[in-house]
């Protein structure tokens, strides 16, 4: 096992302009927001984003002008509705949107994870999901039925936010957590994997419960500590969404000029995630959204 503990800045600097990156979490929850904020600080651009259900992560990077193309089954903010930055740039044609359905997007990640040349799906028949670059009609060699092949989705690097890690990048989840994401599949499909976590714990603690490790160290290329790293979204089991901060975000995201100001006030000048948090929220709010470890 290799020691993989890094700073967020170091991890972000390994990502290059124009790369295809996978992002974990879903809608509002457990996106690696602290890491994405650092990517924006470092001025990354022309990225292609791949995810199962995009949300706050996509909206933020798209609004910051870092993205050329997105591929996913959804991009929205769950209870808060549409993703304003994505909607604006998609409608204007500046953003290349490749929508899939949940299972056909998963078929793409599964194909990449297994090293198969394409995935197979039955859900496309009769729909308008007819992306000529990524979806092709094929014939079942056994029955002659019409099926669809989907291109593998193989991120060059996948960015995830997790719960606990040791210094080697064994990522563990709590006993009760939310499974409504495909983080493990994304990691498996990706060339490289970078993870931020809420809490570092000792290796001795990790080895006592191997069943809690969902990303083994040899899948993980680098890990960084980022408490409240999914803020303003929630990290299930550890904290709820910061709805006040989300409202501020949303108000800014609806207008490109306001969003630029939001970035210039809260994100670009922040030295680190704690500094960002100090600009957009307060200890009292963090305490209010925090879920007690005892329950």
């Amino acid at each position, binding site marked *: 096992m290799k020691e993989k503990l890094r700073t967020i800045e170091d991890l972000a600097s390994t990502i290059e302009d124009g790369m295809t990156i996978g992002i974990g979490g879903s809608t509002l929850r457990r996106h690696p927001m602290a890491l994405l904020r650092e990517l924006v600080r470092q001025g990354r651009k022309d990225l292609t984003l791949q995810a199962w259900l995009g949300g706050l992560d996509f909206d933020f990077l798209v609004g910051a002008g870092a993205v050329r193309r997105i591929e996913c089954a959804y991009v929205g903010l769950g209870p808060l509705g549409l993703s304003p930055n994505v909607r604006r740039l998609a409608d204007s044609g500046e953003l290349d949107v490749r929508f899939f359905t949940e299972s056909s997007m998963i078929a793409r990640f599964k194909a990449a994870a297994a090293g198969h040349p394409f995935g197979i799906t039955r859900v496309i028949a009769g729909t308008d999901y007819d992306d000529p670059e990524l979806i092709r009609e094929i014939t079942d060699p056994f029955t002659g039925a019409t099926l669809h092949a989907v291109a593998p989705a193989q991120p060059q690097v996948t960015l995830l936010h997790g719960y606990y890690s040791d210094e080697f990048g064994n990522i563990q989840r709590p006993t009760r957590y939310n499974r409504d994401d495909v983080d493990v599949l994304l990691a498996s499909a990706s060339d490289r994997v970078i993870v931020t976590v809420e809490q570092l714990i000792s290796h001795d603690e990790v080895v006592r419960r191997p069943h809690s490790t969902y990303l083994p160290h040899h899948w993980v290329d680098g890990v960084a500590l980022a408490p409240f790293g999914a803020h303003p979204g929630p990290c299930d*089991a550890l904290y709820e969404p910061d709805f006040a901060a989300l409202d501020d975000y949303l108000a800014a995201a609806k207008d490109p000029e306001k969003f630029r100001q939001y970035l210039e006030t809260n994100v670009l000048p922040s030295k680190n995630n704690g500094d960002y948090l100090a600009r957009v929220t*307060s200890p009292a709010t963090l*305490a209010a959204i925090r879920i*007690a470890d005892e329950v």
Partner: protein
Amino acid sequence: MTVHPTRQSKLTTVTDLASRVSDGMTLAVGGFGVYGRPMAFVRELIRLERKDLTVVTTTSGQETELLVGAGLVRRLETAYAGLEKWGLARRVRAAVEAGEIEIADYDEVMSFDRFRAAQDGLTSFSANYMHGSSLPEQNPDMKPTTNPLTGAPEHAIPAASADIAIVHVPAADRFGNAAMPADQMMPQGLDLTTVRAFDRVLLTAENIVDTNALTRFPQRVQIPCFLIEAVAHAPWGAHPGAMLGSYDADGEHFDELVEAGASAETFDKYLGKYVREVSDNDAYLDLVGINTLLKIQRRSFK
């Protein structure tokens, strides 16, 4: 779990909790060493300018240093007053040396036994290891006696007695049911004794949780609602001390505290900056800063 809608909430503010302590009262304070001290409550007591308090602890740490240094204390009953790796409680020392406070020393286990006796409704218990030590000489509350069964010489030791006890817990609901971490440690076991030992018990809590969150894990709840008079939310309420299962001690802040303890004047400046000129716990946390709070955070696996 159905909770009847008219069941009375005991949730209140730290200010309201502290205002239940009047001048001259005896206060039992939870925590051990630098761990789990109800510091948000202590800071509020200082802002309320209470005086002539008797403080009863098993051991005393930074909470007593602040209370004594701010001039609230007339008498202290304990086995230890210090700041562990950060050294002596300098304001306690100065106050004792100047004769400003009265101190009743007990052996450490005896100090725990005084709380256990209070929990058990006893007025006193006997100890057979005090003769030969100077403790009874300095502390006239220990009375020489003879064991009626064996005739052996003993001392009667008074059970701890307090008007109000205050304990800082990791999580509580609005009725005062309070949960401990899965890996509950000795200082928290001691807090359980404190909660059970006195007529009026107040809690501050790191987290206020829904009753339904507790009913899933009732074995974590060792403090039942009927023992508790009132509860208030005080996140990072043990800062600068440690809260086991939640955060470590803030070493840099302790350095500042110890340095300030050098004189009454410098300590007064510390109290001004961190207590008197700060409106409440939220404002105190703003002053300490998110970066520091996240740096000491140590959430336990759940």
